[in-house]
C-alpha cells in the first residue's frame, strides 16, 4: 500500500497543498470535536432535532408573546437606561484614570526595573481573567445591591483591559523621541508628558471609547445580579413572564446602543 503510494508520487509531480501529516492531524482534531459535540448533546439532553424541525413553531410562540411590544413601558425603561449609562460613564472614567499609571508601570520602554514591570503585568493579567459577572456578584455581596457595586465591578473589569491595550501601545512607541528629552535634562514626568503622551494619545482616546461601549453592554448583564441599571428591570420582567415589556426594553436599549456607537465612531475618526 505504502509502496504503491510512493510509486504514484514519484511518477506524478502533483503535490498536495498541505503535507500529509497536517491533513491527518486536522482530521483527527475534527473527529474529536465532533465526538465531544455529540457527547455534550447527549449529556445535557438538548433536543437538537426538535429545535430544527419545530423551528418555526418556536419562533412563532416567542414572537406571539413578545409582540407587539408594550410601548407604554418605554417610559419606565428610560430611568434605568440612564442609570446604565451613568454606571458606564463613571466606571470608564475611573478606569481611564487608574490605567495611566498602571500601564506606564507595565511598559518596558518606561520602567526598566524588572520587578516592578513583572509585578504590575501579573496583577493586570489576573484582573483580566476575572469575568465581569463574577466581579459584580462579589461586589454585590460586599456592598449590597445597587449602582455602586456595578461601578466597582466595571471599573476593575475595564481597568485590566485598558491597561493591557495602553501598555502595549506604550511599548511600541519610538524611544528616540524620549531620549532627546531625557538628554536635555527633562525628568521622568516631563519625558512622559512631552514624549510619550503625544505618541499614544490618539490610540488612548480610541481605547477609552471602545471600553465605554463595552461597559454600556456589560452593565446590562450586571443588572441580573443586582448591580443596578437596565438589566435589573429586564430580570424582573422576565421573571414575571411579561415578554411584551421585555421587548419594549430591548428596543429602547437597541436604539441607545446604536446612538452611542455612532457618536463614539464619529469621535474616534476625528482623533485617529
Amino acid at each position, binding site marked *: 500500500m505504502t509502496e504503491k503510494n510512493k510509486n504514484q508520487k514519484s511518477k506524478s509531480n502533483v503535490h498536495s497543498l498541505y503535507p500529509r501529516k497536517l491533513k491527518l492531524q486536522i482530521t483527527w482534531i475534527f473527529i474529536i470535536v465532533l465526538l465531544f459535540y455529540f457527547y455534550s448533546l447527549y449529556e445535557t439532553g438538548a433536543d437538537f432535532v426538535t429545535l430544527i424541525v419545530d423551528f418555526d413553531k418556536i419562533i412563532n410562540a416567542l414572537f406571539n408573546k413578545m409582540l407587539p411590544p408594550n410601548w407604554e413601558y418605554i417610559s419606565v425603561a428610560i430611568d434605568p437606561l440612564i442609570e446604565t449609562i451613568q454606571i458606564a460613564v463613571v466606571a470608564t472614567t475611573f478606569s481611564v484614570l487608574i490605567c495611566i499609571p498602571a500601564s506606564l508601570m507595565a511598559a518596558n520602554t518606561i520602567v526598566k526595573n524588572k520587578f516592578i514591570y513583572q509585578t504590575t503585568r501579573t496583577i493586570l493579567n489576573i484582573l483580566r481573567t476575572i469575568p465581569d459577572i463574577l466581579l459584580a456578584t462579589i461586589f454585590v455581596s460586599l456592598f449590597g445591591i445597587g449602582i455602586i457595586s456595578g461601578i466597582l465591578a466595571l471599573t476593575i473589569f475595564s481597568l485590566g483591559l485598558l491597561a493591557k491595550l495602553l501598555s502595549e501601545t506604550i511599548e511600541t512607541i519610538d524611544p528616540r523621541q524620549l531620549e532627546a528629552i*531625557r538628554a536635555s535634562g527633562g525628568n521622568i514626568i516631563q519625558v512622559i508628558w512631552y514624549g510619550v503622551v*503625544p505618541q499614544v494619545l490618539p490610540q488612548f482616546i480610541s481605547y477609552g471609547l471602545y471600553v465605554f461601549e463595552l461597559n454600556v453592554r456589560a452593565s446590562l448583564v450586571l443588572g441580573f445580579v443586582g448591580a443596578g441599571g437596565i438589566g435589573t428591570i429586564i430580570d424582573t420582567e422576565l421573571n414575571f413572564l411579561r415578554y411584551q415589556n421585555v421587548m419594549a426594553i430591548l428596543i429602547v436599549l437597541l436604539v441607545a446602543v446604536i446612538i452611542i456607537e455612532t457618536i463614539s465612531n464619529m469621535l474616534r475618526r476625528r482623533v485617529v
Partner: protein
Amino acid sequence: MITFKDLSLVYPNGTPGLKDVNVTVNEGEFVVIVGLSGAGKSTFIRSINRMVNPTEGELYVEDENILDLKGKDLRKLRTKVGMIFQNYNLVNRSSVFKNTISGRLGHTGTLKSIFNLFSKEDKARAYNNLKRVNIEEYIYQRADQLSGGQQQRVSIARVLTQDPKLILADEPVASLDPPTSHQVMQYLKKINTEDNITTIVNLHFIDMAMEYADRIIGMRDGEVVFDGPVSEVSEKTFEQIYNRPIREDDLRGSDTDDGEE
C-alpha cells in the same frame, strides 16, 4: 573644558566601549571624532552627558567629575549639554514650536511644564533660535511633516533653546544628502564661532571632518589612536585611523548646491 582621565567603559553585556581614553577638549573648540563603525564614537560622546555610564576613570565637565552624578544633579548636567542625533529625535506629532521649547524642560518646573507655562523669555528664546536656523515659517507645522534637513535644523534650535555650554552631535548628517549635510554643518560651525559653544561632532566622512573641524580625534576599537589639529591631518592619517586605504564612500562629496544661507 572637558577632561577624560583614564576613562574606560564596558557595556553590561561585556562589550568594551572605551579603553583608557585620555583627552582634553578646550572651551570653544570644534572637535570632530572619526573612526569606523563600532570604534566607540557614540560611546565617547554619550559618556559626556551620561547617556551611557563609564565604568572606570574620571570625566570632568567644567571641573566637576560627572561619573557619580545622580537624579537632580545629573539632570542639571544635561541641561548644560545639548545633544543632536542622527535621526533628529523630534517628537513627531508635536509642533515645531513645542519641540523647540521642550529644550527648556530641564530649566522648567514639572507642574509648569505640564500646563505649558513657559515664561515669555523662554518663548522668545525658542522663536529666535528657530529664526537663527531659518525655519521660523514652519513654527506650527507638525515635526514629521518637515524634510530631514529641516527637522535637523529644528533639533539645532531645540538644543540652542536649552542654552548649553556644550553641544554634542552624533552623526548629525548621516541621514541627509550632501548639500543638506553641508548646510547643517555650517549652522553648527556658525553657532560654535558666534556663541563660543564647545562642539563635538561624530562624522564618518573624511572630507567633511577636514572642512569643519578645528581638531580631529581618531578612534579605533574603543581607543583614541589620533588626536591633533586639522593642519596635522592628511589622507595618511585617516588610513592609519581606519587601518585600511581610503574609499569612495568615506567622502560625502562637495557642497554643490549651497541651499539657503
